[in-house]
């Protein structure tokens, strides 16, 4: 007897328990908005464009929350109220109600009209670059981003440097397949399309380092095509530009670095990689073949990350990152166009010594 009563009590508990658990779980998720530190989060806009998007998102989010509560609450209420109980009469056979139909057609339409306003304003305000924007060209490669600064004559890779409080207009294209440039703190996404030019507006408020990621599936190592953006004050940026405009400094004779340069030349690395020692350099010029295309290494050691911004890993030293990469690139990045060159330990150490001179 008592078990039956208990069962009657427990059954709805189990039934609604799962629902309650889910709700608690959802709330727990929401409460983590502030706590968790995610470098790619869309919730910490750090520039005017991302802030604008964030504002639109929250407007729509709260409207959606209200609708969610009303509709799901309504379903829950109906389920609780009209559960078949003993003594419940058969329901009246209602086939519909035209006034209600009109109401629940018009009200959602009105809500959507409200949402449409910031949507359309946002599209038109955020798409076209401003007149005084600094141009940067971004070229997507499998699997790294190349950056060119047409105003300064600089070529770089993996890390985009930009001044704060100044709009950067990215003119983007791809050397192979579709890519998608995304730095969530600064702006939404935009494709890089082979044979076409797309533009993206970027702007940062504070000096900081931001994470980015290629967001369009671009083949085998799409998950390892990441990006970094470093925003700096105008003064720092000018200094950076001045540094990057220098030619590389040839290594001292008889140094490990010189041995590394020799390995670089003998292994045919110059097919893909350029290192610009300038017109006065006496040795063989290191200019990549037009067809092949690897990152320009002239200022390689000035970048905080390399290999599509995946190395060095968290807690890994720069040299260890390079050791891992040079030992077998396709293992680190499957499908990498840099092959495994079967370098000896000594060759790798020499190469690292040489690469460190490319400040």
């Amino acid at each position, binding site marked *: 007897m008592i078990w039956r009563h208990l069962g009657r009590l427990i059954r709805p508990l189990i039934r609604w328990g799962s629902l309650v658990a889910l709700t608690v779980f959802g709330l727990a*998720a929401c409460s983590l908005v502030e706590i968790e530190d995610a470098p790619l989060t*869309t919730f910490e806009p750090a520039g005017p464009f991302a802030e604008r998007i964030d504002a639109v998102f929250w407007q729509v*989010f709260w409207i959606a929350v209200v609708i969610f509560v009303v509709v799901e609450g309504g379903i829950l209420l109906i389920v609780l109220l009209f559960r078949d109980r003993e003594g419940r009469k058969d329901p009246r056979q209602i086939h519909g109600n035209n006034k209600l139909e009109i109401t*629940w057609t018009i009200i959602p339409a009105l809500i959507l009209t409200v949402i449409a306003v910031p*949507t359309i304003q946002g599209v*038109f305000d955020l798409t076209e670059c401003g007149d005084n924007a600094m141009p940067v060209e971004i070229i997507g490669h499998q699997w790294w981003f190349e950056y060119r600064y047409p105003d300064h004559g600089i070529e770089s890779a993996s890390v985009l440097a930009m001044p704060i409080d100044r709009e950067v207009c990215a003119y983007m294209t791809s050397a192979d397949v579709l890519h998608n440039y995304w730095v969530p703190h600064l702006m*939404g996404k935009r494709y890089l399309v082979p044979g076409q030019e797309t533009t993206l507006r970027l702007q940062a408020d504070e000096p900081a380092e931001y994470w980015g990621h290629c*967001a369009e599936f671009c083949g085998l190592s799409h998950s390892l095509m990441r990006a970094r953006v470093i925003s700096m004050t105008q003064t720092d940026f000018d200094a950076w530009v001045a540094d990057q405009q220098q030619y590389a400094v040839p290594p001292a004779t008889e140094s490990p670095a010189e041995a590394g340069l020799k390995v670089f030349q003998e292994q045919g690395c110059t097919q893909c990689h350029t290192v610009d020692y300038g017109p006065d350099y006496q040795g063989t010029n290191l200019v990549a073949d037009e067809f092949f295309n690897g990152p320009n290494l002239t200022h390689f050691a000035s970048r905080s990350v390399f290999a599509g911004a995946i190395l060095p*890993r968290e807690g890994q030293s720069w040299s260890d990152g390079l050791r891992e990469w040079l030992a077998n690139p396709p293992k680190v990045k499957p499908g990498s166009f840099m092959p495994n060159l079967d370098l000896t330990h000594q060759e790798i150490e020499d190469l690292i010594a040489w690469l460190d001179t490319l400040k």
Partner: protein
Amino acid sequence: MTATAERRPATTIFRRPRSTTGFWGWVTTADHKKIGIMYGYAAFIFFLVGGLEALLLRIQLSSADNTFLTAAEYNAAFTMHGTTMVFLFIMPISAAFINYLLPLMIGARDVAFPRMNALSWWIFLFAGIFLYSVLVFSDPAAPAGVEGVSGNLDPADNTVLGGMPDGGWFGYQPNAGPFYSPGTAMDYWALGVQFLGLASLISSVNFIVTIFNMRALGMRLLRMPVFVWMSLVVALLLLFSLPIIAIALFMVTFDRQFGSLFFVAEAGGDPILWQHLFWLFGHPEVYILILPAMGIVSEVLPVFSKKPLFGYAAVVFAGAAIAFLGFGVWAHHMFASGISPVAQAAFGLSTMTIAVPTGVKIFNWMGTMWGGRLKFTTPMLFAIGFVAMFVIGGLSGVTHAVVPSDWQQTDTYYIVAHFHYVLFGGSVFGLFAGLYYWFPKMTGRLLNEKLGKLNFWTMFTGFNLTFAPMHWLGLQGMVRRTAYYPPEAGFDFWNLVATVGAFIIAAGVLIFMFNWWRSKKHGEPSGIDPWDARTVEWTTPNPTPEYNFGVAPTVTSLDDFWHKKYAEDSEGRPVRRPEAEETLTNLMETGINPPHPIHLPAPSYYPILLAAGIPLVGWGIIYHTSFVGKLLILVGVLVVASASFGWSMEPLEEPHDEHGDSEPSGDGYSSLEDDA
């Protein structure tokens, strides 16, 4: 009719198939119910395959920088998971429902073109096998006709699983094209999907003709069950959207096999063109996947609320409106692609308008339940689960229409969460409601209710654990289609939760399979009307007799069967008619012992034969530079041609068939004489 009844000289080489049971009975059948059952089982097997692929993905993502799968295996697994679930599970299982139920619900004895129906089933099955034959035949070398460029792969990363198609179910160009996806895998994908589309296209024509021509006497269009309406809408969507993807896939095959350069930018081709074509098909496809489930829910909710569907006409027209608008929103999949701001604004607005008819449906379902006498049977639980989960998917869908917001969310897990709420919480829950609801139609027994409820709550919990955290992961910046994420990205915890959820879903599916297997033999016998149902398909005994109805039904109203059982009192409450039990007994009687002999479509060898030629042509195209390839094309074409010829020569009647022409005309069957 007299002409066909005459004796004809034997024009066929083979003896015509006679068996209606056993192996050959299934192979040669033209019976819509058998075809529906075969569709259902095959789709469910593919559901398990796609589910296993999903589990592989979830294991890989359960921790940062996991090495459970290689990058190639991961890409192959998500490509085949998407392709399988869309083309080999939800579409065919919807086809299973439509096949089995459509003729029954409109009071017909079969579809308009029974042999064509068999043809589309066999093409579907062979196309599915063809697609997965890539596991056996995959070849990493460049396809014929072009030189591929491939990067370097660690030899240890070259695995069988990684040899499956890996360009995504969306096959974005040029990544899935000849240069960046060398090897034959994406050719299997392009041709496999092409053949699956052919199967659906044939079905769609069949269903449209059936609905317009074979309804029972008195079943006007606005007396059709909503499921039939949604089948009609889906068939029209298929008819208009499949040719688009067919052309696009032909272009891909030509690019890959014969060196045409439709999508190659360097040659003036346009990679974005593929996206327009793909989504012009792909967005209507979304509604192709959801509308049958919406139809099922619209049947289940009224029965277990003991009320008619609230706003029948509104629900029907909302479904049609969704389908119509669905052709004008495709570019919302491409807001990041660099299309002009005007286009972005326009497609944002058109996408928002779709929310209106969708809302109308949801409110009408709630209106149906309001004031009802709700019985929480398993089909009802799944149907309510559908409504509740679909609301979430719909709301996140509206946020995609908010273009600036979508620039942040597109290509992240937020999207993955959204469409799983629509396709799993929506379509799959709806389809499960249908499986529980109509299981007695097929077997004469009920699925076990206790196991059913366990099944529902496991799947419901697992589903939310898996996909709710994905909203959060996406907003935290987790990009789609990535096999690895670094530990410092902060994605570990919720990915682990999602993985646990996925295994709970798997447990739910296992419970369902056990329930099915057990109830088929030992389930409680259902009788003719186990649910106190409203629609015509329940006026014939369970399991459904081969001829569907002993006497062709006539219909005088919407929910005709209900009104035969119930009158209304002065308050508008249903009162069971005194003669209701007698009506049921009579239906049972005439269903089991039809008063007149009934003529059924004859079985035929030709559908399976014709369908068998098609994958031969597919293999031939992929290997067309070799002798074997050319031979395969030739053999395949000959098989198709000779089967078509034999088909067209096949007499409608058995030469020895002595059936009388006593059938009254206008019974929904006579148009079978115009058999395709």
